[in-house]
């Protein structure tokens, strides 16, 4: 197991400052959890609705620590060959065929040869473990992967080592910081959760969302940002099929700016509702409940 690594952050406040400098505005819960992940060398599992800043957190963390971001995007059917490593099948076949012409090369040599480094296709998990430079490993949308992938993650994340039968065991020289994200479309296994620090992200407070808007869409007037954020919160309270997320708030802010609107009244909202609400039934409900007509 790799020895203790010098921590990246000196305090919780340091985390907050450097994430903010990387364009991500954390709250106390986020900065504390990131700080602990760094100190304890544990992965963070970030869970929450779509568009609440899970993926962005990992990216900002990489920027803030000068690390490279290695991303494993999960999906149904993701397997070891895509997540960890795979042998370059075509290249191996070519090598075997090439050796058949020369009767000198005995089979053992060919065998050793085609299971060498040259034929290994490294996938994100292996890549992250083998890096010697600072690394943030983002395992995105973990809940989309099949349950079997969790067993693999558990193995890799507990020892930070990988055994390749033909090559032996590869151990991390430098542990990556690991961020797993999930939309909670299914419950991840207890074992995996225990291995991680748990960070539940929800929609931000009005105050923080206003700050996010102002920092991401700098041209927007503060008064309008305030109106916008309060309107988005009124929409969230309707419990629509798809509540508007931070992404939609930002898109909306950008739209208002581009249209040169300086207040968010009924007509402005009617003409831009599609930017925040994607389902027709949600738009109908919102228009009725917020008295747009």
């Amino acid at each position, binding site marked *: 197991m790799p020895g203790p690594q010098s921590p990246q952050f000196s*305090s*919780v406040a340091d985390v907050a400052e450097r994430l903010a400098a990387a364009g991500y505005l954390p709250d*106390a*819960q986020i900065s*504390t*959890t990131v*700080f*602990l992940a760094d*100190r*304890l060398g544990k992965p*963070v599992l970030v*869970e*929450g609705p779509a568009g609440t800043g899970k993926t962005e957190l990992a990216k900002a963390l990489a920027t803030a620590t000068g690390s490279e971001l290695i991303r494993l995007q999960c999906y*149904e*059917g993701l*397997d070891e*060959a895509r997540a960890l490593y*795979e*042998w370059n*099948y075509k290249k*191996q*076949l070519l090598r*075997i065929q090439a050796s*058949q012409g020369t009767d000198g090369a005995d089979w053992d040599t060919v065998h050793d040869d085609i299971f060498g480094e040259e034929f290994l296709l490294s996938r994100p998990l292996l890549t992250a473990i083998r890096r010697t430079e600072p690394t943030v490993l983002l395992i995105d949308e973990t809940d989309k992967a*099949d349950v079997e992938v969790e067993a693999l993650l558990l193995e890799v994340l507990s020892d930070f080592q990988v055994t390749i039968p033909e090559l032996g065991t590869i151990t991390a020289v430098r542990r990556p910081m690991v961020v797993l994200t999930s939309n*909670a*479309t*299914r*419950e991840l296994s*207890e074992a995996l*959760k*225990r291995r991680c*620090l*748990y*960070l*539940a992200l*929800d929609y931000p407070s*009005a105050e923080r969302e206003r700050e996010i808007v102002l920092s991401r869409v700098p041209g927007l007037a503060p008064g309008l940002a305030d*109106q916008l954020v*309060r*309107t988005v*919160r*009124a929409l969230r*309270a309707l*419990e629509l*099929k798809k509540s508007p997320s931070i992404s939609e708030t930002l898109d909306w802010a950008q739209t208002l700016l581009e249209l040169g609107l300086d207040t*968010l*009244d*009924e007509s402005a*909202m009617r003409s831009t509702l599609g930017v925040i609400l994607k*389902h*027709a*039934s*949600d738009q*109908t*409900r919102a228009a009725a*409940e*917020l*008295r*747009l007509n």
Partner: protein
Amino acid sequence: MTSRVPAVEPGGLAGHLDGFVRAVRDAGVPVGISQAVDAAEILTVVDLLDREQLRHGLAAVLLQRAAQRPTYDVLFDLWWPLSDRPPVPEDDRDEAPGDGGGEADCTLDLPGSAEDLAELMRAELLRLLLDGDEEALRRLARAAVERLGRGQPSPSGQSFFSYRVMRALSPDTLVARLLSGLLAEGDRGGLAEQVARQTLRERLAAFRAAVEAEVRRRTAAEKGRDKLAKSAVRPMADQVDFLRAQAADLAELRRAVAPLARRLAVRLSARRRLAREGRLDFRKTVRASLGTGGVPVVTHHRSRTVHKPELVVLCDVSGSVAGFSHFTLMLTQALREHFTGVRAFAFVDSTDEVTRFFRPGADVVDAVQRIGREADVVAFDGHSDYGNAFEVFADRWATAVGPRTSLLVLGDGRTNYRPPGLPVLADLVRRSRSAHWLNPEPQRMWGSGDSAADRYGEVIDMVECRNATQLAEFVTTL
């Protein structure tokens, strides 16, 4: 006025943490040994003087689901209370309590009579609600509990009540004045008013929560926290009984059930999509080819059994299961979004197909109302008649259930002592690929009174499904 010794004395920290972890566990959060060990490590890493760091740090190792957080926060506030007010002489009690720095808002000159005091605080509340500074609202809440929330002193200690505070301040009656404060003349009636109302709802809720938290804190200081911990903690959303859900729980409950619905849909659709793939397993193929001189004579595939789910949901929407059926209809809607192969039927004393109300894109609330108005689920008196409902279903939709169908019955199996229609159900089960019945009543009630659940249980797999947690368990076994 006593100022208690701070709850955490040096050296006793480990024991204190232990007690906290036990309380969290007692509240229904499964905390394992390794997490308890991790919690102890957290204490060595965070800044113990920063209460919020401690709160978030311990949460990161003790919790596994977002639904556990409100319960956790209540317990945290009891175990790591805000520092008690310093004992103050009677005559300058008007100093702001709590975290200090509260000079700005509570330098009220205290009048003698209780009515004047309440009036003054009410004016202050109005100002802060307009302003929206949540920290100032919390400070006011603490002061209000101190001055307006006291019950009759008794030998067991001083009691505090939030209802006394809320009655004295009656913040709900401020809404009209708040609205005119927030809105310009022409803004009434439209979008601006709706948005302002929501903003006020949030601020009022924050104030109420702060009052309740302070009452708990004072009560714990007076009477001991262990006594309080059990009563103070509301069940977590996913433990709330479907049949007993209060209006206040409904919104939270809906939020707990929504991801479950999605999860169920994803589970079913995942199987369907994976079945088509059957991708080549390169590694196995290459290994096998070594035996044939490197020529991949045999290719290996990752295979899955083909399974195209068809789901028929048969849902009791009678009054006795009103809370429950709302959620099962939500599930139905979510499933419909992902499959064409879902058909939904509702019944009270007769059955009607309700699939049409759940077109993809339809609104659940709307669908539930339309079922009540438009569907033909009552033929006689509007009291459950399972026997007739099953017969109508089997007769009118004879082909709905076939060898590829999963059948899901949702209801309490309370027949009003009418014939339960066992043979009809047994036949439906026989014809289906699989069949389950989700019952919102506790298992020990099955068969009591007019419940035929025990008898149904002999012909169909009957599953107790009282809350979102049990629903989740069922979803994973499906």
